């Protein structure tokens, strides 16, 4: 068993919407991440994937969001209890983040070199020229063929794939133990996407970096991760190893997600979809949050919310569904 790096327990994040009202974007989320592991966090837009990552990074300083309860233990330290200053020394140095849109992640007023040097010098006491050398090395490490030219460029002169490589170099320049990749390939086209994923795998195997990969692309999860969490409406609805998740999804939402992925050669003309849409955070249904969209929903589903319970015989596998284990549930899967 690999060493545990991150333990998120009962994480609940709320956003203030008015003087006394607030919505809960992430509700009682519990998961863990080992060193060198790539963990997938899957779900559709607005299900709380990104908020989970921002909670870990503590990047709520001046928005209305805050971690209401729960703990985020990173290498033995609870991140929710750290001061702003302590948190700043962890951000970028021990945990770093890659964002969705590489083209706007870089400051368009600064050359690539200035931004990389800044990122290096924020956490390392090195001279400008040393930092520049390191920046150049980092760029070649992420597969940029002409680091010197790229260093002198402004971000608008780089293509999307190049920008994402620069972003990854920036996230890696302090050799973090953990990297949060928030939909790192969504804005890129398919070939570049494959390269970036390959690069992230490389980094993982070279530096034993843990990666929390947030995505809505199940293909990416299948390709990259060993384990995956499925989120719906701010809750984890299923946790399983990737093989199990694709071979035998349990939660009706996961089933629907996997069914809606196009398969080559299947000859289907229209893809199945999940009816309805994600419930509004301020008007959550009572009971199971997925019940209104679930075709197997029973009376019990609409009244009480199921727990995230371990699946019998399923090697750490968990699922949040009333129907699982009962006759109806089994029929539902059949």
């Amino acid at each position, binding site marked *: 068993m690999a060493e545990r790096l991150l333990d998120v327990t009962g994480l609940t994040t709320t956003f203030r919407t008015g003087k006394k009202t607030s919505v809960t974007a992430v509700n009682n989320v519990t998961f863990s991440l080992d060193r060198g592991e790539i963990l997938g966090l899957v779900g559709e837009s607005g299900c709380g994937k990104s908020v989970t990552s921002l909670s870990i990074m503590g990047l709520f*300083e001046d928005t209305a969001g805050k971690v209401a309860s729960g703990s985020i233990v990173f290498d033995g330290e609870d991140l929710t209890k750290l001061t702003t200053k302590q948190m700043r020394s962890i951000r970028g140095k021990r945990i770093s983040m890659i964002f969705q849109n590489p083209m706007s992640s870089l400051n368009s007023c600064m050359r690539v070199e200035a931004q990389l040097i800044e990122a290096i010098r924020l956490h390392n006491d090195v001279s400008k020229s040393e930092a520049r050398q390191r920046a150049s090395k980092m760029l070649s490490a992420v597969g940029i063929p002409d680091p010197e030219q790229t260093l002198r460029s402004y971000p608008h002169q780089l293509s999307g794939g190049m920008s994402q490589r620069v972003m990854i170099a920036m996230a890696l320049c302090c050799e973090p133990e953990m990297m949060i990749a928030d939909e790192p390939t969504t804005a890129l086209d398919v070939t570049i996407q494959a390269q970036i994923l390959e690069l992230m795998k490389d980094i993982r195997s070279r530096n034993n970096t843990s990666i929390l990969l947030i995505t809505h692309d199940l293909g990416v999860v299948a390709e990259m991760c060993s384990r995956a969490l499925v989120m719906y409406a701010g809750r984890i609805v299923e946790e399983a190893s990737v093989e199990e998740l694709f071979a035998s999804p349990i939660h009706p939402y996961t089933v629907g997600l996997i069914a809606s992925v196009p398969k080559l050669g299947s000859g289907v003309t229209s893809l199945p979809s999940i009816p309805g849409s994600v419930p509004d955070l301020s008007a959550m249904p009572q009971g199971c949050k997925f019940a209104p969209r679930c075709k197997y929903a029973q009376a019990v589903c609409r009244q009480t919310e199921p727990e995230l319970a371990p699946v019998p015989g399923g090697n750490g596998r968990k699922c949040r569904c009333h129907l699982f284990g009962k006759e109806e549930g089994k029929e539902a899967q059949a």
Partner: protein
Amino acid sequence: MSEETAKVLDQEPLYADAEALPTAQNRVKAFIKKFSKRKAALVSLVFLVALIVVAVISPYIVPYDPAAPDYSHMLEGPTAQHILGTDEFGRDVLSRVMVGARLSLFCALSAVVVGTFLGTVLGLLAGYYGGILESLIMRGSDVLFAFPDILLAIAIVAIIGPGTVNVIIAVAVFTVPSFARIMRSATIQVKGSLYVEVARSLGCPDRRILWTHIFPGTIQSMIVNFTMRIGTAILAAASLSFLGYGADVTVPEWGSMLSTARNYMTTAPHLVYVPGVLIFLTVLAFNLLGDGLRDTLDPKLK
């Protein structure tokens, strides 16, 4: 990296725009090319540069001593000797407006520089930190905004007394709120951009984010407003000296020249026209220049 990846990588275009080489000269060249297409702004720039040059070297090139009276040629219209005529003491109007440009431009420019500096700092702080600080700064500028510009300037000069420095202070004070507002909204806009979040995710401290990441993104709004406000400031400074709140009345200044000329409006109208038209042209030129700069610099209009 696997060999396969490396192979695909070779096919990926290195630069989105291979023509645009990353040099500062290219950016300047592109700016000049774009700016020179805006004829009005270009003409304004030439006019203003000429005006500033004349103002600076005026003591050496004036045809007559601007303070020397000539009682045999009082209130004369334009003649061959005095191209723009003479005033009530027979002083050469051309020499006086040339020298007067110094004080008028100096007052306006220094007032706007001071006002821009204060307004920018306040706006950045308000926009970035928000909360009570923002409320204090923005409500403060709302209060100043509630007064008409010139009334506010008169009130300030009435409190601290007339004089060149006090006129500058008065004009600077009413320049501050407009900058604070513009810079605050620009700051909030840039603050929401992804690269600021990236900087934060890298552990960048607030002060650094504010000055190295946010401020450069707001500079364009600042430059444009700066040129626009100079026009207003010239007008305000001239108005203050027209009303007698300016510097020593014996020192030539466009506003005070206009003020004295008022008494002779029917008999010697050229005395009103010359400084009046100059104020008008200068304010217009600064505004047109500001428009041109905005069109060239604003990335949203590209």
